């Protein structure tokens, strides 16, 4: 059984079986990922790309196999390994944004973005005088596409979240990319929440940049990637200087690598790359679409039950949305709710979920969020609803 491959799911928390429902924050790791990382450190640990000895060769192969796997799985021309989604987006801001954007240029963002797809652009805007336009979110939890079309006028870059980490709503990316391309704008997709639930053919998708993290798809923390089209890659200038990203260094100056290494200065995350490769290979052992379909059924059922308990639920739980249920009770504080759940072994998230502009639009300061992933069961969802029923009866 898939669930049995996750050692952490066997543990108890506060005397109760762990029900881990904070998957939009990070997912748990199957044994194969733990083994791969342990094997790397036990047998092959060395630095990459430099020495000729056997261990260095194995380490290099392990690291580069992650890039190869990403390129193959997502059909991408370029895959730059980063520390995660946040660094990937910052890399675009520094390496592409600083090279291409100047005062008066326009970046289109949405109110649905995670802070990691807002703050780097605000910093660039302050530095370069770039104009930021935000597409509002409607009361039905979707982007105002009419406003999006207006915002596109003169845009050089469009940054949009694939799937909201608060609402689970998947945005109409195909339409967004098509309309952005029509005005000549580059498109960056923050796919941190999207790719764990679905796969994509990057080249036919049409976006120029796609950022995501390993740890939200059963891989290790500390590693992620930026997929880039060759034409956008050619417009990027080096951002972080150091070892591994250079071709030659003299007192007079340096020349740079021409491949992805140009953007991977310093010793990279080798064990994490090895672990991520194992996770990506492991994810091919089951049907992700089928699992997603099962999870969205669960999330939609939970949402309906919670509405029945008097909760406000934020999201729509459509076929292509993520299995995320954000909710609030009218009288029970969300932090109190999460602590009460934790006391019974349920791990959920509370707070603003690093998406304060979205919450401001919704007129709230935070939610309780239960997010489901491939190892979660219907029984766990039923247990959550029962626990919440008890909490409401006792504390409302």
């Amino acid at each position, binding site marked *: 059984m898939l669930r049995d491959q996750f050692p952490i799911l066997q543990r108890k928390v*506060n*005397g109760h079986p762990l029900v881990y429902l904070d998957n939009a924050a990070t997912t748990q790791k199957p044994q194969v990922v733990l083994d791969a990382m342990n094997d790397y450190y036990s047998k092959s640990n060395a630095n990459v790309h430099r020495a000729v000895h056997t261990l260095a060769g194995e380490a290099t192969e392990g690291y580069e196999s992650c890039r190869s796997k990403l390129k193959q799985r997502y059909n991408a021309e370029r895959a730059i390994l980063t520390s995660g989604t946040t660094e990937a987006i910052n890399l675009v801001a520094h390496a592409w944004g600083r090279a291409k954007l100047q005062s008066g240029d326009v970046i289109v963002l949405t109110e649905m973005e995670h802070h990691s797809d807002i703050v780097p652009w605000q910093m660039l805007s302050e530095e370069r005088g770039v104009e930021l336009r935000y597409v509002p979110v409607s009361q039905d939890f979707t982007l105002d596409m009419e406003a999006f079309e207006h915002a596109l006028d003169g845009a050089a870059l469009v940054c949009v979240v694939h799937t909201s980490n608060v609402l689970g709503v998947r945005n109409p990316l195909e339409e967004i990319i098509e309309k952005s391309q029509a005005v000549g704008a580059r498109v960056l997709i923050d796919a941190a929440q999207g790719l764990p639930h679905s796969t994509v053919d990057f080249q036919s998708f049409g976006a120029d940049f796609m950022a995501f993290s390993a740890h939200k798809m059963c891989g290790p923390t500390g590693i992620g990637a930026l997929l880039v089209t060759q034409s956008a890659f050619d417009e990027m200038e080096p951002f972080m200087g150091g070892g591994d990203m250079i071709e030659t260094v003299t007192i007079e100056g340096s020349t740079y690598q021409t491949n992805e290494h140009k953007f991977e200065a310093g010793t990279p995350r080798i064990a994490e790359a090895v672990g991520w490769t194992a996770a990506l290979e492991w994810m091919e052992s089951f049907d992700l679409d089928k699992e997603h379909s099962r999870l969205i059924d669960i999330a939609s059922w939970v949402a309906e039950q919670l509405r029945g308990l008097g909760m406000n639920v934020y999201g729509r739980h459509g076929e292509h949305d993520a299995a995320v249920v954000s909710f609030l009770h009218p009288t029970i*504080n969300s*932090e*109190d709710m999460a*602590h*009460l759940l*934790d*006391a*019974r072994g349920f791990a959920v998230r*509370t*707070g603003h979920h690093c998406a304060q502009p979205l919450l401001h639009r919704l007129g709230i300061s935070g939610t309780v969020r239960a997010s489901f992933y491939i190892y979660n069961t219907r029984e766990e969802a039923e247990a959550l609803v029962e626990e919440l029923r008890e909490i409401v009866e006792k*504390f409302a």
Partner: protein
Amino acid sequence: MTYPEALQELVEEFQAIEDKRERLEMLFELADEVVELPQDQWDDETRVRGCQSEAHVRIGIAEGRIQFLSAADARMVQGLMGILTIALDGLTPAQAVLIPPTFAEEMGLLNTLTPSRSNGFRNMYDKVMTDLRQNRGD
């Protein structure tokens, strides 16, 4: 040092509870001990920084004794304030500043609370102690 008698009793009561949920429920009940600081008096001076929820405290002194007013939007934070209310009741500022923050840990509340909430508690404790020292004239 030893705690004031009422606080010592609370420490022992929490220590007797093994179940985390029951400890939380007891903490929630202690929220009723708070002498409420009305919302129209909340400002930057009263705000406890580092708390995940909105939390405000104000120290007053009447006839040499502490008047501790507080409020929060989470029942749990109010419970922590309730403990401080009991701990500070009837003390002079000079006596109160001698209370160490260790009681929360001894009550098992720092295990009960998330790290951020623990930090929030410590920030609240530090703010109260700083305000008390200012009232004492330190």
